[in-house]
């Protein structure tokens, strides 16, 4: 049973005045433990697709099965629980709470989980450590560099040990050195800890760290290929 299975998925944005069709029917499935890169030109609908997969927005038509169950059959609270416990989302623009420390930001998902409070600090510190930010724990998030902020966002996505981590151009706002570090962390999470990773990028070299690449164009899947031997950054930098 695939972890994620979409069939003829469509999305039409409708602000009440204009309807903007973005996804015209995409079908694919992703198994547990995969590392998939989604590529495509700007405006092709990559982010839209990732939001639908991550339960952050509602699709218009088609079907989406998550863990073998129809996504539409989950109640509001069940969806909240899935977002909290099973999915981790890394946004291109970080989306950290400003006026809060690194620790507070990473602890945020735990607040909405059913994990006992006594474990929160341990889990949060472990996640912060895994992205190499232990020396920044009590810094205000506004005091951090872009690369550090993205690593905080990764730690926040990790802290509840989700099954899937979604990353929407996580290196897009970073220099190549910070970007390399971020990709290295994601790759490690996949290879060593078995997290399923779905990564959007428009850089072929970055995408080739994944095991599979899905290309999207104009709201349709253009190609879906396996990567024969993924790159490994190993502390290096992303070559563009």
């Amino acid at each position: 049973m695939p972890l994620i299975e979409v069939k003829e998925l469509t999305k039409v944005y409708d602000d009440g005045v204009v309807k903007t069709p973005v996804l015209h029917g995409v079908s694919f499935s992703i198994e547990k433990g995969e590392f998939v890169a989604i590529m495509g030109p700007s405006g092709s609908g990559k982010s839209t697709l990732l939001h639908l997969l991550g339960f952050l927005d509602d699709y218009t038509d088609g079907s989406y099965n998550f863990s073998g169950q129809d996504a539409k059959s989950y109640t509001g609270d069940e969806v909240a629980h899935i977002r909290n416990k099973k999915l981790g989302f890394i946004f291109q623009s970080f989306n950290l709470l400003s006026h809060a420390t690194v620790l507070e930001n990473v602890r945020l998902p735990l607040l909405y989980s059913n994990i006992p409070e006594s474990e929160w600090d341990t889990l949060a510190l472990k996640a912060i450590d895994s992205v190499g930010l232990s020396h920044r724990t009590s810094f205000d998030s506004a005091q951090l560099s872009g690369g550090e902020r993205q690593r905080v966002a990764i730690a926040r996505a990790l802290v509840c040990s989700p099954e899937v981590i979604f990353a929407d151009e996580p290196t897009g706002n970073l220099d190549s050195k910070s970007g390399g570090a971020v990709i290295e962390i994601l790759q490690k999470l996949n290879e060593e800890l078995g997290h399923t990773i779905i990564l959007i990028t428009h850089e072929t070299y970055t995408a080739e760290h994944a095991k599979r690449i899905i290309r999207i164009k104009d709201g349709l899947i253009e190609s879906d290929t396996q990567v024969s031997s993924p790159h490994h950054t190993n502390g290096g930098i992303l070559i563009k």
Partner: protein
Amino acid sequence: MTFKHSIQTAYKGLEANRSRSLLTILGIVIGVAAIILVMSLGEGAQNLILGQIQGMGSKTIIVVPGREPKGPADAAQVLSDSLKERDLDALKRKENVPTLKTIMPLVFGGDSSSHENETYRLTIFGATPLIETIFDLPVEQGSYFTEEDVRGRTSVVVIGTKVKKELFGDSEALGEKIKIKGRSFRIVGILPEKGQVSFFNFDEAAIVPYTTAQDYIFGIKYFHRIIVESEDEGTIARTVDDITATIRETHDITIADKDDFFVETQADLASRLSTITSILTAFLAAVAAISLVVGGIGIMNIMLVSVTERTKEIGLRKALGATYSDILTQFLLEAVMLTGIGGIVGILTGASLAFIISLVLTNVLALSWSFSFPVSAAILGLGVSGLIGLVFGIYPARTAAKKSPIEALRHE
């Protein structure tokens, strides 16, 4: 999410948006404080006015010469010399007014007084010793003149504290003489400081036998008032009827329209004043309502803007696993904390201001003002501003929480 963490989250939310939180609190403080202040002053004014009436007992009946004023154009003073000694004698007869307990004529007017080089303009009351009980005016030093003095037209006087201070300063006044209308009056008693009683300020007064006042000071043969006390409150109506009948008989009046006097009870006065005070209260309530509306609009604006601005934060929290009710609880608690703090500070501010003003009125203006805390205004102010805070704190949060996380996150 546990309640403890909901509270912590709400508190952090307020702290992270400190200036907007303070503005909201300020709006609530102003609304609540304004209402408390206005209503406290209103209650104080009412008590002041009602206290004036209560200076005289509720069994007191006042006979006033002249025609009862029915409108502003009436010349009330036309028959102002209609109450004379024979009316007093007729009323005193038990068979005429059986329920009468005490009766006292009263004459009054302003004149100047002097002692050595000091002069002072005082209010002169011509009365009998009964004035002590009728106006609740015991002397502090000495004693009142006697019925004997009234009969003998003696030149003796009881003076108020202000008169004593102005004419004698700190030196002994009892037994000394003051001059009124060129005549020497011996001071037999001094009143304690009293302030305003029944619209008269006895601190600035001199009380003399009414006979002396009529003959030697005012040169009149009539009374300005006749004050009667009924046996008890149940007999007031009967006493009033008997008084009216008796005076009509002495004045040969057969139709009520021709009355050259009228009778007032404390109850009449109270009801007339309560009309005035209820107009005053309605006016103050209107002012308070306006301040509440203005404060409410302020709270509404700040709440709407600040919660709407946090749509992005709401989207983020939802993306990280917050449920709809987690979000609502957070903003509900934030609004409760804001309105709670604002309400308490507002009550304290309003009450302190009202208290300071009452101190100024008592100490500087010497009014017998008493500070009162308007509980109903406090509840109303808290209720309305709290409700506005809650509604406009939760309504935009609810709208934001209903959006998909991405829609909310896209909000700038």
